[in-house]
Structures are given as C-alpha cells and as structure tokens.
C-alpha cells in the first residue's frame, strides 16, 4: 500500500471525509423524499454515490440499500465500455441512463443515472443514483415477479449507456419511447426525474467541495479514505486463523418445474484466509439456468453479496461505527466465480429475479465465515418474498410492489431480529393504511404466528404472516425463496422454519403455491398469504436462561411443551419449576 497519510494531513482528511458523507446522505434523503413508487420511497431500494473520474467511490448514501450503492462503480465501468465500443464521449450537461446486467448493472430494473461532473473543463467524476424502477415494460406488470423471463430481452427495456439528456437538453424521443413502453408511466418517469434531480444536487455539492478545498486535496482525501477502509478490513481479516472454510447452501429454484436443472440449486463456498487476504471461491456452484431469471450477474450482485456480507460481519457498524464504503473494502478480497454458473451467468441469460438467490449466497458465505468468527455472525436467515400486484383503473395501469420481511437467526449473546429485511438488502414495508387508501387491496393480517421461534440459547427471529386480499379485479406475480431449505441452526441451535405461500379463493379453499409464481389474474375476495420464514437458533437451547424461556412462553414465541422438550425448562402457569428444570437439564445429554 502506498502511504497516503503523507499526502494529506489527518485533520483535512477527516474534514473531507465528513463533508463527502454529508453529500451522500443528502442525495439519499432527497431521492427517498421526492420519489413516487413505494419501492424507492418506502422500501429504500435505491443508492446514490459520487465517483471520481476513474470510477472509484468517494462516498455512498447510507440511508438506502447496500445492494444499490455498492454496484455503482460497476455500472460506470459498463457505461465506459459501451461508450468506447460505440464511439461516444461524455459532455457537460449529459445524463446517462444504464441498466444492462451484462455491463455492470445489478439487474435490469435498477436503473442507473449518471451525471458527469466538470471542474474547469476537466472531467473530475460522476454523480450517480440507481433505483429500482416500478416497471420497464417486461412481459408481465411490474419489475419483480417476472420469474418466467427466458432471456434478458424478456425483462423489459434495456438501456445501454443511453444519453437521456445531451449537453443539458432532454432527448425527447428517448423519453417518448420510455413513456410508450412502460406501465404506470407517470410514476416511472417521475421517479426517473427524481433520480436525475438527485444526481444534479450531488454534482453541485461535489463541485462546491472541489472549489473550496481544491482538486488535489479532494483526490488526496479520496486515496486516504480508500486506504483507511482497506487498512481496517485487512486488520480484521488478519485476526482470522489462516485456512479454508467451506459451506454449501441451497435454494428452491423452481420447485414445481419438471426440469431438475431448475430446482434445488447449490451454492458452494470455499473461503480461504491467508494473512490479511481472503479468497472466496464459488467453484462447485450450480450451472446457470439458461431460461429462467434467477441467475446473478457477477458484477453487481454476486460480488456485492460477497463483499457486503464480509464487511457486515468483520466491520460490524455497531462496533466499528462509520467506515467509508469504497474500493478499499474490496481490495483484500478475491472472488472466483466460474462462467456459466448461477453466480456468473453468460449472455443472454435472464437475471431479473436474482434478489432472493443473492441473499441465499450471502447466507452461505456467512455460514462459512461462522466457522472462523462464530461470535460475529447470526444463524441462518429467513429469505424474502416480493409480490407485484397490478390491475387497471379507468384504463390506467396501477402497479404496487410489496416486500415481505424475512428474519435473522439467533446471534451470539442476542436473539435473532424478528421481521426484518436481511443481510445484503435493507428495504421497508408499506403502511397498511397507505396500501388500502391507494390500491384496491386490503392487508387482512400482519402479525407473528405463535410458537414459531427456532430454539437456541439465543432464539431465532420470527417472520410474520401477511395476508393481502384483492378488493377489485387484478393480478399478481411472486418471486420468493426459502420454502424447501430451512434456515440453519448454529452451534447446537435448532433449524428455523421455511416459508409458505398460500392462495385462498372466494370460498376459502387454500392452495399451496411455490416460491415463484408467474402472473396470475385474480378476483375480489381472493387472498394471497405469505407465512414468513423463521431464522435459525444459535447455541444449545438447554443453555438458555430459564427466565427468558418463561418470557418466551408468556409471549407465545414458544409453547409450554417446547419449553420442556427443547429447552429443558418446566413451567407451570407463570412460574418456573426450578427443581424439575434443574433435574431435566442435568440429565440432558
């Protein structure tokens, strides 16, 4: 490593680090507040960043989804490749739209907008935002639940480094084409405008910073911050005993498919630590599914799942505070992902529904790392479901995307987190009172099931049950995961419980659905129920504090019977029978 400490004094470095962070927070805040679709404003499925002229991250928004901000440098690399191939150049006033998953985008719905920033005619970087657009004109309404796309062309409009503003002027024909091809037009175009406005604010702030401190100082601060992040991560990697830590994880894929290549797909992780370097080898992972979109683009999804998981575990922000998210956190880690596998698909494989597989990959990496740093991980996570609801009102499309919480496994010294988004993403639900006021839908149940928490010294988190009823004609499609493989218990903890998806018709008849459902028409009175997954338990439940077991019984997290059978705690009424408990626990083998 170059000693960047000499190029900038630590005081100025700290001042600039704070100023850059502040800019990214502002960008994220404004995008969330301005945008229309709930996937951006409520679920925070967006990211913002400033990049330098080489595409290195200067700062990224913290009030957003890691999976969106992290890939931004990859987007720019893709944009540059395409523009070079096609002979285009950046010009002041340009705004570039990009979403090609074979050129750095995480998947097609995550549209990136890039504004080049100039200082005294010199290109000094880019102000960028990515966000999940509600609809890009794919084969069925919405931009999630497109689980039967057969290639990247079926996933909606592809933007390969398309200038939507040229030298300050909107390119009208491109905007017309977008309007003609997407459903819920006003929302999508409104969100795109919000993204552009956000990029312009970031560009202005970046310029103000350079004008105040000088370009050289800002660049020196950038190098300082990248080195800083690299240094802290290497310091933590070096604490891990050298060796290879192995784990495998499985996803459902398409459980109702007759094709064995589409289901029970494997992630194979060999995580090798040598000194302060780490190699994550994914060789052995299942082949890509050529005609179903659960493949994970390597740059943007696979690499982010790896980097973000390792960073979350080794540089846990509760302990380490704010660490600038930048190239420094990537340098110590090398990823091997063979081409043609789920984790590095080749053109034109579809990838739009790669979100849940990515979380399962993150979970498998955590499982491998858990052997090395058992106190820093949680037991297996419960994966998510995302449902696209849609219909027509007054000949206009409405599309609403609902994200269902997962749960985390038990943690060292702490129970699992209930009903949260997990690992590499961090979305947010929509208030019931908002949904029912604006869509012909009714959320008829949203609460925990009783007696569902996985047993452990630290119990697993509980996933909720969510029922949504149609109050008008409409339709839905689903992308989810985690029906077949239970979240893993850790170190003596019990496995958690997989999720379920149930369709109820007007008569109350129930049908089980797999974790992926293509577009299906619906009628008033029909209900879709998701029974959320519960994370795994951590540690031997016989070591759990009996008072906590009693509290869990009183709170209906576990039953009286399980308290005795799985925790060795005998309870009568509101009391622990201590003698019987001691006896039971002492004879526990």
């Amino acid at each position, binding site marked *: 490593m170059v000693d960047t400490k000499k190029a900038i004094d630590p005081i100025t470095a700290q001042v600039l680090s704070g100023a850059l962070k502040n800019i990214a927070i502002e960008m994220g805040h*404004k995008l969330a507040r301005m945008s229309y679709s709930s996937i951006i404003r409520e679920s925070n499925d967006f990211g913002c960043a400033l990049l330098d002229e080489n595409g290195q991250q200067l700062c990224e928004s913290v009030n957003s989804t890691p999976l969106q901000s992290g890939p931004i440098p990859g987007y720019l690399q893709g944009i540059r490749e395409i523009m070079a191939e096609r002979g285009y150049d950046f010009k002041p006033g340009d705004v570039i739209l990009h979403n090609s998953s074979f050129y750095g985008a995480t998947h097609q719905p995550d549209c990136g907008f890039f504004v080049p920033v100039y200082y005294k005619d010199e290109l000094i970087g880019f102000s960028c935002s990515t966000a999940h657009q509600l609809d890009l004109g794919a084969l069925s309404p919405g931009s999630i639940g497109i689980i039967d796309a057969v290639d990247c062309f079926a996933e909606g409009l592809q933007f390969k480094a398309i200038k939507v503003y040229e030298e300050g002027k909107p390119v009208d024909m491109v905007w017309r084409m977008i309007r003609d091809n997407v459903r819920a037009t006003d929302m999508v175009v409104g969100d795109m405008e*919000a993204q552009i406005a956000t990029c312009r604010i970031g560009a202005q702030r970046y310029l103000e910073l350079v004008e105040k401190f000088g370009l050289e100082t800002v660049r020196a601060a950038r190098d300082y911050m990248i080195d800083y992040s690299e240094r802290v991560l290497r310091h933590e990697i070096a604490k891990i005993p050298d060796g290879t830590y192995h784990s495998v994880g499985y996803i459902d894929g398409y459980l109702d498919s007759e094709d064995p290549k589409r289901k029970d797909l494997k992630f194979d992780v060999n995580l090798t630590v040598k000194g302060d370097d780490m190699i994550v080898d994914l060789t052995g992972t299942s082949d890509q599914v050529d005609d179903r979109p659960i493949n994970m683009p390597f740059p943007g999804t696979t690499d982010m799942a790896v980097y973000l998981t390792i960073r979350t575990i080794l540089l*846990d922000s*509760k302990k380490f505070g704010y*660490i600038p998210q930048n190239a420094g956190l990537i340098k110590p880690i090398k990823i091997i992902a063979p081409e043609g596998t789920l984790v590095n698909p080749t053109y034109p494989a579809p990838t739009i529904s790669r979100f849940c597989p990515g979380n399962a990959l993150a979970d498998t990496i955590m499982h491998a790392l858990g052997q090395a740093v058992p106190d820093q991980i949680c037991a297996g996570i419960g994966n998510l479901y995302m449902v696209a609801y849609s219909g027509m009102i007054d000949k206009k499309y409405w599309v609403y995307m609902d994200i269902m919480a997962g749960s985390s496994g038990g943690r060292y010294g702490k129970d699992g987190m209930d009903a949260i988004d997990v690992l590499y993403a961090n979305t947010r639900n929509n208030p019931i009172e908002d949904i029912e006021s604006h869509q012909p839908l009714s959320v008829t149940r949203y*609460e925990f099931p009783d007696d569902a928490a996985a047993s452990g010294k630290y119990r697993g988190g509980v996933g909720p049950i969510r029922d949504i009823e149609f109050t008008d004609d409409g339709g839905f499609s689903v992308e989810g995961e985690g029906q077949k493989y239970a979240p893993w218990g850790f170190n003596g903890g019990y496995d958690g419980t997989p999720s379920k998806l149930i369709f109820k018709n007007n008569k109350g008849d129930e049908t089980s659905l797999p974790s992926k459902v293509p577009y299906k028409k619906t009628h008033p009175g029909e209900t879709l129920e998701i029974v959320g997954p519960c994370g795994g338990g951590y540690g031997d439940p016989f070591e759990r504090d009996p008072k906590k077991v009693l509290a869990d019984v009183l709170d209906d997290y576990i039953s009286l019977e399980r308290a005795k059978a799985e925790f060795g705690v005998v309870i009568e009424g509101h009391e622990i029978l201590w003698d019987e408990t001691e006896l039971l626990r002492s004879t526990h083998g």
Partner: protein
Amino acid sequence: MKLIGVDIGGTFTDVIYTDTDTGVSRIHKTPTTTNDPSVGMVNGISELCSRYGIDRSSVDHVFHGTTIATNAALEHKGAKTALITTKGYRDILQIGRHQRPENYSITQEIPWQDRTMVERRYRKTVSERVGVLDGKAYEKVPLDEEAVVKILDEFKQEGVESVVVGFLFSYLDSAHEERVKEIISEKFPEFYVTTSADVSPQFREFERFATASMNGFVGPKMKGYIQSLESRLNDTGISCDLLIMTSNGGVANSATVSQKPVMTLLSGPAAGVLGGQWAGKLSHHERLITFDVGGTSADIGIVTERGFAESSAGDTEIAGYPVQVPMIDIYTIGAGGGSIAYVDAGGAFKVGPQSAGSYPGPACYGRGGELPTVTDATLVLGRLDSDHFLDGEMEIYPEKAVQAVQNLASELGLGLYETAEGILTIVNNNMANAIRSRTIQKGFDPRGFSLAALGGGGPMCSIEVAKILDIPEVIIPPYPGITSATGLLTTDLKYDAVQTIFMASDKVDLNYLNQRFTSLEEEITAQLIEAGFDSNHISLLRFFDCRYVGQGYELRIPVESGPIDKSNASDIWDTFHTVHKREYGHSFLNAPIEIVNMRVTGIGEMPKIGDPDFAAGSHSLDEALVKVASAWFRADGELKAFDTPHYMKSKLPIGDVIAGPCIILQKDTTSVIPPDCTATMRSNGSIIVKIGGEA
C-alpha cells in the same frame, strides 16, 4: 404580570423571574435534584423569591421545561404498558417498518424489539375493523365489547398500569377507540389510558401506535411528577397555574400534559430554540441558526421570518422510536465540550461522539480523565482562561490538558498546538455539517442567517463554525448559559389539531375542506377558551401536509385563513411547488398534489419577558480589561500565538467596536473572538460578532 421560568438541566436548575410591568428580571441557579427534580425546582423558586423579596402569591404564571418524559423514554424506565389492537395485527409494534436501523451490522439493536414498550404478552387483539372506501371510513367489523372487558380484566390481574388502544384507520374513525376508552373509564378507572387517534390522528399505523405507546409508557410517571410539583408549589405559597413547555415550541397546561406527555419529549431543547429566537429579536434578526452547545451534544434549530422550523411528519423520533407529534425541528449531534479526540483502529483522527461527560470530564478537570477533549484543546490554545473558568468557581488544571493533547499529538506525529487546533477543526466541521443538513440541504443559504451562540459551549466555538459556513455574523445573547429558561418566558400557549384526509388536487372537495377547517378551529378555540383566553388573545394558523400524488412524504405548507375557493386554491398548489423546490431542489409542476393532513394550530397569547438593560454596568474598554495573555489562532494560513486581551463582559462599553483576537469573560460562558473579527456589545447585553472585520 410576574412570570417565573424554570429549566432543569443535568447539573443545574435555572430559574428566571421577570416583571413585565417594570422590566426587571432576576436569575438564579441551583443544583438539580436528580431523583425528584420538583424538589430542586421549588427550592430554586423559593431561594430566588427570598433573595429578591418577591411576594410568592403575586406570581401569575410558572413556565417549566421538563425532561421527565424524555428521560423515561431514553432510559426505558416507564410504566407497565399494555395494548389493545385490531384482531390480526398483534405485532405491528414489534414489526415496525421491517427495516434495520443499520445496514452493516449483525449485532445491532432494533429499538422496537430490544427495548419494547409493550411486551407481546400484553398485546391483545379484539375483533373490530374500520375499512376505507373512496377515502371514507366505514365499519367493516363491529367492536367486540365483551372481549374488551375480558382483556381489561386480565390486564388488571397482571398489574398493568397503562393501557394503550390502537386500531387500524382510527385516524379516520375513532369510534371504536373511544368506546374502549369509555369502558375503561367506567369499569377500570385506575388505568392510565391513551388512544392512538387522540395523540396522533394520522395515517401510518406503526408510527401512530408507537406514539400512543410512548405516551402510555411515560404517562403515569409524568402525571405523578406534575401532581407532586403542583402540591410542592402550593406548599411554598405559589398557587398560580403551571405551564409546561411542549415539543412544538408552545406551552400547555398541566392537565393537558398529564394526558399527553408525549407532547413534551423535546421540552428542554425547544425552550433553547425559543431562547435563541428571543436573542435574535433583541438584535432585530429574524433569520437565525440557533446553536446550543453543551458538554456532550449540540442542538441546532432554524428560525426564519415565519418562526422556527418544524419537523415534517415522519422525521420525528425519540430513543429510536417514531413519535408523530408536532415538534420543533431540532437536530442534535454528539459534539460538545466533552467530546473525546482519538485515533481509531484505522489510523483516522476523530473527535466524538463519545464524551467524557462531567465525570471524569475533560482531562483539565483533574477528575481522572486522561483523554483529550474539545475543552482541553480550547484550553491548550489559550482560548479558555483557567483563572476564570465558571467565574473562577471551578479549579482546572491546564497542565493535564497539555499532557492529554500532547499524547495524542505524539500518536499523530503532529505538534501540540497543531493537534489542539486539529481537534477543534474536526469537531467544528462536524457541527458545520450538521448545520448544513438543516440549511443548505433544505434550500436555505446560511450566508443570509446569523448564528445564535447558546449554551456554555456556543460562544467558544460558534465563530469558527460560522466561518466554515460563510455565515457573516454571530449573536451572543446576554446570558448564553441560561437560554432555555429565558426561552420559556417568550412562548405562548399552543395547541395543535390534525386530520388525515387524502385529497388530490384534481378531485378537491372545497366544501369538505372549509367545513373541516372550521370544525377543527372551533375545537381548538374551545380548548383555548377553556384555558382562560378571550378571543382577542387567540390566533389560529392553518396548514396542509401535502405531497405529489404517489409520493410517500409530506411537506407542510401554510394556508391563508378564510374560505378556500376555486381562485385561491391555486395559491395552495403554487406554494407547495415552491416549498418542494426549495426543500429538494426540484418540483414536478405538472403532477397532481395530494393533501394528506390538514392542521390547525391555535395560539393563546401569553405575556413575555422584556429587554434586559446592561447599560448601567458599562465602563470603558480599559476598565473591562482583565489581562493580556497568549492565545493561538490561525491567521493568513499560519497558526501562531497572539497577545490576546481578556475583557470582563459586564464592564464592556456599549457600542464600541472591539477588534479580535480577544476573549470575553462572563459567569456562564467564555466568548472567543478570533483575529479578523470584531465584537460589539449592545445595551441589552447581546454581543454582535462580525466576521471578516466590518462592524
């Protein structure tokens, strides 16, 4: 009118008395009695009255800023609280918005899960449901009253103290919540009861239920405190009414606060902003950034011609919980005199948010603290005078500060003074970033504002912070250290009413809007009349919370009084476009706008403190000079020692332009005036500092 204001801080209870007829004001400080702050408060009032011969029965109003509810929330020490909610939705309070507070943390705390206010065993559901059709509420499922009684019986057996009622869509139709409340008052009058529509009649069920739960959680404690305070005041001969500062910058009477203590969570800081606003008015400044710097944190507020800025719905939280009640927009950062400077594991030079607090405190306190703090750095640079720390009442040890800063300097490979200045530069930039987020990022140019330096620490660092932001002027009020107590005597009685309506600009029902506004105004006016105001002293303000149709966050816009008709309705939409553009830098001119909430604020005008008079003590600059000592400042890019005069504020001549660098001493703070700045004392005791020379 004779008024008393009492603000209770962590260490001191500040009491201020004013006679609005004669203009005389008196100030007194007494130690805070932490276990029962009402003891210290009543002591303070008694001491002040005795010292200055004030007849206790002549006092007309006592104004009070309290942290009882805030501390109960922050320390998670509240009542045993239960919730009755709609069947099928038992865990809304535990699920929240399913978003983790931290992106990158496995071990993080989820406040609403790790520190729940209502344990799951005390969350019970009953059959009832309100639905919504075309924006109107209807009863989908009737309330099962028998089940309610059964549950309340169970709560009673379990020893529950406080019952919260939270049903879906109660902001549109609160009949079911009200019915449960009735049942409680008939059959279980011992419960402290809160209904969600009563404390926060707005959409977003988690936020509303959390607000109601917070009220229930802190309620019994607050109610008890007020009862004991009123009886102590009575015992000491003060029988006038007690008015409590609320988070919205107004006061409410003790009966209202006993029922809705959730209104007071920002009681103390809100009084600080009002004190800053008063300081600005003394100098005829309407655009102000109030900057209240204490030992561990700094509070930032914004004041414009329209008054102080209020938070948007959805931005207000306490102890990690959303709290949806009107609040002054106060931004707090962990930076103050006690903030610790250190080098972290990655080699970065950081300051705060960890603070040395009062114990062990900064190294210079000599209480065993060895880590360098902002106060130590200020002392090392000679900007604090060890002989006059807290008016010489507290002994400090400069050599310990030097040692602590020197240790850090060696670790960084920098010089002593360079390091001390670095500590201040880093913390001042952190503070400047916080101010930036409330000004530049919200479309306000700080260059058009003055910075009001408040708190013990404000006058020490404000001018450097103002320089970073190109703010041209700093106002140091007469008594920066008791700004909050002063602020209490500048407020009015203030009640808010809110109603969620969801109405789009292309489908406006003007009749409905006019009718609802009138009815909210009648409701608020009745409350104010009941509180003893006549119509001449009542004013009403109207607001809408609006967003573009489809957006998820609202912005508040003022609405003119009087009927809304087709012609003036367009002004409302124009105002929204303008506010949106200012706030976010962009507006969607062709998009329809949705009115989400309508609001009415009722103000009952109270008597206020007058201008202080400092002219009497005024002397010449020579007489004010205490000494000349060396202090370090950066000038023309170079850090060097200046022979710096120290003046006693009480003797400063009125109106003279005093050149920096200089240090101005007074009991409750020290003002640091760097080179290239000038200071002028006004007859009302304010010091106006101009940055960049011109006075």
